[in-house]
């Protein structure tokens, strides 16, 4: 049963600290997405990759967020420095172009 995995599941950190979230997409999926979900803004697309190349990161604050795919089995989302307004649930999803997306369980981030 292929699934998207995300680590950590929960992260509590202090303002100014670096946060790294990791995602393992489903093997064979060539598109990977990072989303952020909050009560106020709902589900927002931060960035996405196809064949490990970034296609769109316009939803991401560039000064503090960065997303990479070091290899086909790992996607990372990094926040440095973190701020309280970054508190949210971050989801990774993988899929094929113009098809359904498979979501991971999310990383719940709390920045104090």
């Amino acid at each position: 049963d292929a699934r998207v995995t995300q680590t950590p599941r929960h992260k509590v950190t202090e303002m100014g600290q670096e946060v790294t979230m990791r995602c393992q997409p489903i093997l064979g999926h060539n598109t990977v997405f990072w989303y952020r979900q909050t009560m106020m803004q709902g589900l927002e697309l931060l960035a996405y990759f196809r064949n490990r190349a970034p296609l769109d990161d316009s939803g991401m604050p560039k000064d503090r967020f960065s997303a990479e795919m070091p290899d086909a089995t790992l996607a990372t989302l990094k926040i440095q420095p973190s701020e309280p307004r970054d508190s949210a649930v971050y989801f990774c999803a993988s899929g094929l172009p113009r098809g359904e997306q498979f979501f991971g369980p999310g990383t719940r981030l709390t920045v104090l």
Partner: protein
Amino acid sequence: SQQGEEDPQALSIQEGENATMNCSYKTSINNLQWYRQNSGRGLVHLILIRSNEREKHSGRLRVTLDTSKKSSSLLITASRAADTASYFCATAATGFQKLVFGTGTRLLVSP
């Protein structure tokens, strides 16, 4: 920013009843998808309907798409308590691959 607006924001029904949720969007699309999210969990894909399709079925789910009105509806028939979740529509714009999600409908099905 979200492309889709869903209606109603919340829906409360009894088991066995049908639940209908609506989604409106703003721009041309390649396809529209519906997802379910249980509390504290990730989203689960339910059904995908392409812009040249008008209706699609999957088990107890029926989705319609009206591209002239830029709207879609999701019907869940004979609802169960396990259907309690938030339901989101998401659109893939023509020529693009990324999904833009709606605001979601919270469905509560009481036994």
